[in-house]
């Protein structure tokens, strides 16, 4: 990704490629200790717990799982989750591409500050994001009363779910697109301009093809993050089953409820979410090498 910008020029001509060494280093004993520690740590911390959820979900066979998938609350939660995630991803993609363009191609006062503000949501607790939204758009918030007077409800309704999701996934597209735009430079763009292409043509024919893999990567990351958001959504949703309950809230509410049926429902929904996120990881892993080409 950054070959041209950060590696010293000698790296390009050096006979020993710095990438993908085939020959492991170190003494065999050290190598095996390191290898086993790394693999053991990852397996114990991640793989084992994930397998356990699978086992718990199918503890009583396939029947109860299929039955809880018919749960109308789960179906409407899934529908709501998908709708909210899709709207948020579209908003963040449009905004992300636009702001990446501004940050890379233009210089203006406050540019560094703007750059920092975009990263802010990553280091803020999702719960704090939710509470901030309540303080501004809630009934007693800064704008909430005014908006309610005009018949617009944000908190405890779908708009709040979208806002919360948009905020937590805000930097993901921007952070993928900016490095690619920076590296591409403006030569092709200028050439096209001198040949008479207008801004729209240049965007569609030059910029978009350049950033498409980075954009795809950012979009998938955002989609995964949006579907899985819990903390921020938990604060602003109210979580009414069949109405404002998203899939992650469904898992939480059913797990807290106790009783075998609710517990099975929680594990089924959690298992489904897990499968979806593993699919996303595989798509992400598949997209990743492409952007370096």
């Amino acid at each position, binding site marked *: 990704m950054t070959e041209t910008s950060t590696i010293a020029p000698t790296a390009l001509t*050096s006979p*020993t490629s710095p990438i993908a060494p085939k020959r492991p280093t170190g003494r065999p004993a050290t190598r095996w200790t390191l*290898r086993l520690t790394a*693999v053991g740590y990852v397996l114990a*911390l991640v793989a084992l717990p994930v397998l356990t959820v699978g086992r718990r979900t199918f503890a009583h066979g396939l029947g109860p799982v299929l039955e809880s998938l018919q749960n109308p609350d789960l179906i409407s939660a899934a529908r709501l989750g998908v709708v909210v995630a899709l709207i948020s991803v579209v908003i963040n993609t449009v905004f992300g591409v636009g702001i990446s363009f501004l940050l890379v191609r*233009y210089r203006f006062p406050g540019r560094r500050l703007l750059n920092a503000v975009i990263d802010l949501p990553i*280091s803020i607790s999702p*719960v704090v994001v939710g509470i901030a939204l309540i303080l501004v758009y809630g009934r007693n918030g800064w704008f909430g009363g005014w908006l309610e007077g005009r018949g617009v409800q944000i908190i405890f309704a779908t708009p709040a779910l979208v806002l919360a999701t948009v905020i937590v996934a805000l930097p993901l597209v921007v952070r993928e697109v900016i490095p690619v735009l920076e590296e591409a430079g403006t030569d092709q763009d200028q050439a096209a301009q001198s040949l008479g292409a207008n801004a729209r043509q240049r965007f569609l024919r030059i910029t978009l093809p350049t950033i498409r893999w980075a954009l795809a990567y950012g979009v998938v990351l955002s989609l995964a993050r949006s579907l899985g958001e819990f903390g921020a959504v938990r604060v602003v949703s109210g979580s009414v089953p069949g109405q404002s309950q998203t899939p992650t809230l469904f898992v939480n509410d059913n797990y807290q409820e106790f009783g075998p049926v609710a517990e099975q429902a929680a594990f089924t929904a959690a298992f489904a979410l897990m499968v979806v996120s593993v699919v996303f990881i595989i798509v992400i892993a598949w997209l990743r090498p492409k952007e370096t080409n």
Partner: protein
Amino acid sequence: MSAQVLEAAPPRRRPRPVSAGRLSAASGLGLGVSLLWLSLIVLLPIAAIVTTSFESGPTAFWHTVTSTEALGTVRLTVAAALLATVFNAVFGTLIAWVLVRDTFRGKRFIEVIIDIPFALPTIVAGLVLISLYGPQSPFGIDLVGTRRGVFLALLFVTLPFVVRSVQPVLIEMERDVEEAAASLGANGFTTFRRIILPTITPAILAGAALAFARALGEYGSVILISANLIGKTEVSSSFVLKKIEEGDAVAAAGVATLLLMVAVVVLVILDSLQRVAARRD
């Protein structure tokens, strides 16, 4: 590259965009809309938190955040986050090293499952951990309602940060210097300490900063296993949520402000540490 850059004396690392500079009418409008949007969704909400927490004056704010319960949650959250960050900085570096420099069967698999804590919804992560280390644990280890459970949850969600920030740096590193050090008689550990570690330190710090910020605000993966015991396993984010649900916006905003401040301070410190390390390099 433009003639301007070729003539200019100091060579730039990145080719500077030629059109960089003036905002046209269209891009100016775009910037305006972006700023308005950012203000509505990020800046105003943060301002609302800070102003609400100081609504009744700085003394009231101080009183809120130093109440026994609030302070207890902050202490636990910071300590557990710090411990998890240090743990994963060490193990993350080790894992990144093995993934880059070693080849073995199943490496691809490890490579993929490392990202699971990133992609898994936090509440599912919570359920995952409680089914392994809860009352129905297959090993008979029940960590529900213990601080070790909180630590474990934070360890789980912060695993990928350091791995993913160190990995690209290790891939790009040249082997010449290491080989030179080895030929001069340096053993593996000396080479690591004197050659490799200085190069990857900025990346370790960057990953650690993100991991710490994440751990500080973590909610979903922690609540199930912590059982939210006041004075024992209650973390700050769940204290904040409880207060807003009780209608005590000032208390909620107070601790939220404190969390924001700690996160910003950590990010600033680590950013400057990174700059120092990068300059030395």
